[in-house]
């Protein structure tokens, strides 16, 4: 390869090839990510679950917000019942027996492992608390842990 004309042309050729390769790789990746769109969800929102219910007893995850005012402890003392809401009106009632995570409060995000029962109740075997993207100091908020559901409600669910 000589220094002047052909060298420059070779450099341009390489640049074009690299740019084509990068474009191809990016579109392949985006295509794969798009194809995964629904399979790669970590959980179903209530509206997704009621629109397209999984068969009863099949292990799935349900995620959403714990509806404020819906959390109650049943008579046996270890079972809790609450309602999960999403971005739309659909809601799903959930039952869970076990230790609740520290951040599990009304109006906050939750992800439940379990299965949908025939009567439409979701029986959870494990609960995960979902934290939202807000970081607010306790003093500044001037509120108890359970008193600021609205703010986290509007932001935990990502809406486009």
């Amino acid at each position, binding site marked *: 390869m000589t220094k002047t004309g052909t060298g420059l042309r070779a450099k341009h050729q390489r640049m074009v090839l690299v740019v084509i390769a990068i474009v191809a790789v990016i579109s392949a990746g985006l295509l794969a990510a798009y194809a995964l769109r629904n399979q*790669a969800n*970590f959980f179903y*929102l209530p509206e997704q679950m009621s629109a397209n219910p999984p068969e009863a007893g099949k292990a799935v995850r349900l995620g959403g917000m714990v509806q404020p005012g819906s959390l109650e402890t049943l008579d046996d003392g270890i079972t809790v019942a609450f309602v999960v809401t999403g971005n739309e009106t659909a809601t799903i009632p959930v039952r869970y027996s076990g230790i609740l995570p*520290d*951040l599990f*409060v009304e109006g906050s995000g939750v*992800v439940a492992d379990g299965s949908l029962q025939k009567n439409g109740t979701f029986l959870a075997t494990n609960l995960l608390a*979902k934290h939202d993207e807000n970081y607010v100091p306790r003093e500044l908020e001037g509120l108890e842990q359970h008193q600021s559901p609205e703010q986290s409600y509007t932001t935990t669910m990502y809406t486009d």
Partner: protein
Amino acid sequence: MHGYANPTRFLSLARWLTPVLLLSGIVLSAGAVAWGLFVVPPDRLMGETVRILYIHVPSAWLGMGGWTGIALSSAALLIWKHPLAAIGARAVAIPGMVFTAICLATGSIWGRPTWGSWWVWDGRLTSMLVLLFLYAGYIALAQASARDGGSSKIVAIFGIVGAINIPIINRSVVWWNSLHQPPSITVGKSAIAGEFLIPLLIAVLGFSLLFGGIVLMRMRALIAEMQVEARLRRRALEDDVPVAASMGTS
């Protein structure tokens, strides 16, 4: 930029830049982490565990930024055959992998008390773990090619192809329902209160300066290694075939 293709010129710049970056990086990141540990108030819901943010976020930034650097150097190597590009990409790989591992470890420690689980297979966590494996593969490939004199093109192509994971990590919490929270800091907007945000930004800056210093240090070490090898080879040539001694000059 091509001025620095000459290693002597690059080295004279790197010689004074390395201690400057390392020192300012150490001072800023130590200060920001201390600020985060002792001054910042507890979070409304997370309480004291919020402090892990000051290690987790800068590490995640550098893990992803490191691979972006590898991809850019790889493109520079393939297009312009810039001699420093391969050295730069190799120098970034190990610190990038270390920060990715720190990000995963701190996230896991935070996830146990916050979510109730050390690890879940959601989009963000899985794609970050893939990044760690990509780093491991890249380091193995780069070392093998440097040792056995293989083609550095293969390594550069791997660096570019692996970059597809970076936008996937970034968008994973938006595209898919995930347990990891959506981005707190987006262009022009922050869902993080100022008390938390300022030390966080200083920590990101400090960690980045430190990272730059480490990369320059490793680049100098790699160049020195190559010079030693070239010198040894030349000496071996001189000893064996005195006639061929003039060939070794570079």
